[in-house]
C-alpha cells in the first residue's frame, strides 16, 4: 500500500459504499464508467439537489452549517464532497481540551467539525454508509489536522439522524477498502461477483448481466451448438 497518493491517483470517495455493496457494481461505475438511473438513484439525486448548495452556509445556535464541502485524503487516496459539515464552537480555552478543535478561515474561535451525510433510504445492515461517512471524516482530519470522533447519517425515509462513531474498526475497514479499490482500479479490472438478492435493487443490473457470471465459458459452446444443429 502506498503511503501517500498523488492527485492523479485519487478515487471518488462515494465509491466506498458501492464497493461494499458489490465490488462489481463499483467496477462498472468507476472502471467501465457505466451508470444507469433507477427509481432509487433518482430519489437520491433529488434529495442531494436539495442538500447541495455550496454557497449556502448558515449558522444555527452558533453552529456553522457548511454544505457541499470538498475534501480529499492523500493517505487514503480518496476525494469527494461532504453533504454537510457542522462546525460546533468549542468552549473557551480552560474548559476545552483543544486538541480536536480547529480554526476556520475568517471565523473567530475554535470549532469541532462533524460530517453529516444524507441518504434517501433507511439504515442498512451493512456498514457501507458508515464507511463512507468515516472516509469523509478521515479526509477532514487530514485537511484540518484534527481528530473527529463522530458524525451523523440522516435518512430520508426515517427523517432521523443516526450517530456514527468513528471507531478504530471502522477506520481500518475504510483503509482496507480504499487500498483494495486502488489495486483493482490500477489493473483496470472489472471483477466477477456471485449474483445475489441485492442484484434486484441494483440499477446496473442490465449492464452487469449477473446471469453472465454463471456462464463464464459458455459462449463458445453456445456458438458451436448452434452451428452443429443447423
Amino acid at each position: 500500500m502506498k503511503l501517500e497518493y498523488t492527485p492523479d491517483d485519487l478515487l471518488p470517495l462515494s465509491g466506498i459504499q458501492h464497493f461494499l455493496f458489490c465490488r462489481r457494481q463499483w467496477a462498472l461505475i468507476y472502471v467501465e464508467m457505466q451508470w444507469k438511473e433507477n427509481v432509487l438513484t433518482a430519489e437520491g439525486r433529488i434529495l442531494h439537489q436539495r442538500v447541495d448548495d455550496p454557497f449556502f452556509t448558515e449558522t444555527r445556535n452558533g453552529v456553522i452549517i457548511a454544505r457541499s464541502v470538498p475534501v480529499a485524503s492523500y493517505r487514503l487516496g480518496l476525494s469527494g464532497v461532504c453533504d454537510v459539515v457542522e462546525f460546533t464552537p468549542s468552549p473557551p480555552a480552560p474548559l476545552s481540551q483543544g486538541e480536536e478543535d480547529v480554526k476556520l478561515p475568517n471565523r473567530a474561535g475554535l470549532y469541532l467539525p462533524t460530517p453529516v451525510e444524507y441518504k434517501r433510504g433507511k439504515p442498512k445492515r451493512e456498514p457501507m454508509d458508515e464507511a463512507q461517512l468515516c472516509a469523509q471524516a478521515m479526509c477532514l482530519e487530514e485537511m484540518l489536522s484534527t481528530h473527529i470522533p463522530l458524525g451523523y447519517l440522516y435518512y430520508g425515509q426515517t427523517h432521523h439522524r443516526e450517530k456514527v462513531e468513528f471507531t478504530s474498526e471502522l477506520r481500518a475497514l475504510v483503509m482496507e477498502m480504499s487500498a483494495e479499490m486502488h489495486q483493482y482500479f490500477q489493473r483496470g479490472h472489472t471483477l466477477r461477483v456471485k449474483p445475489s438478492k441485492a442484484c434486484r435493487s441494483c440499477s446496473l443490473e442490465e449492464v452487469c448481466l449477473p446471469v453472465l457470471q454463471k456462464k463464464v465459458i459458455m459462449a463458445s459452446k453456445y456458438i458451436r451448438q448452434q452451428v452443429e444443429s443447423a
Partner: protein
Amino acid sequence: MKHLANVLYITTPETYLSLDGENVVIQKDEHTSTRLPLHNIENIVCFNWQGASPALMGACVEQNIGLTFLAPSGRFLARVTGQVKGNVLLRRKQFQVAENEAQSVPIAASFLLGKLSNCRKVIERALRDHAMLVNVEALSSASAFLKETLKVIPSCQSTADLMAFEGSAAKAYFNVFDHLILQQKNEFYFKERNRRPPLDNMNALLSFLYALLTNECVSALETVGLDPFVGFLHTNRPGRPSLALDLMEELRPVFADRLALSLVNRHQVTEKGFTPKESGGILMDDETRKTVITAWQERKKEEIIHPFLKEKIPFGLIPHIQALLLARHLRGDLDAYPPFFWG
C-alpha cells in the same frame, strides 16, 4: 432487464423540439404543441428540419436518450452525443483487437454465423408457413447452401476468407429473396440489392428499415461504451459506422428483411406510397413511412427468449443486449462473442 421505453419519431418537417422541465415539447406552429415526459423516451428520431433546442440536447445526452436527425428521406444527418461514454480501457481493447486479425476474426465470424443462420431461418420460415406458395426447390437449395457455408465459417483464418464466404452466401440469399414476396408481385419484386438510391419499391423499403436499424445499432454500441466506427468485419472508413454494420449483419434478416416481407405480404404497404423520381430512384411517402415505423415499433415490443441469456426480453432490446455481450467479451467476461441466433 432493461426497460424498453418509447422511441419518439418526429415525421413532420415543420416541428421544433424543446425542453421544459423534464418534458420534451413538440411545437408545430405557434399554437399547437405536445408535451411528453422524457423519462418514458429512449430515443428521439427526427425527420424534421427545424431541429431541437440545446437544452433538450443536453437533457438527452445526460439521460442516455438518443437524439438523431435524419433527412426526410431517411438519410442520416447528425446525432447528438455528449462526452465520450464508457471505459477507455474497453475502447483501447476494441482498437487493439480490431488491429489484430487473429483476434478479430473469431468476432467477425460470430457476426457472420448470426447472419447466415438468421437468413436461413427467414427462408426456412417461408418454407414452413407457405410451402404451397413458394418455389420450394430454389428456397431449399439456398437454405442448404447457407447451411454449408455456416459450417465452414468457424475454420476461417482471415477476414478476407470471411468476406468471400459472406459474399457468396449473401448472393444465394438475395437470389431467392424474390420468392419470399408472395403478394403484390408486380409492384414489389426483388432482383438485386441496390441503394443510393434504391431503384425499386422493395429496395426502398429495405433501405429505410436498414437506416432505422443502423441508428439503433450505433446507439446501442455507444451506450455500452464501444466505438461504433471501429469494426472487426467491415474495414474502417471515415464516416462509416463499421462496428454498427458488423452488428447489423446478424440483425438485418430478423429486424428488417422479415418485416419488409410481412409489410408487403400483408398489404400494409402498397405501390401508392412509392414514387419513382426522374432518375429512377424511389421515394417513400410520409404515410408509408409512418406505417413502416409503426410496424417497426410494434415489432420491437414483441417478446422473445434471448437464445443465449435465456431471458425474456422485448425484441427491441436485442441490439443493446448484443452490444453489451460484445463489450463483455472484450472485457474478458465471456470467452467468445455469442451472436443472436434467431429461433
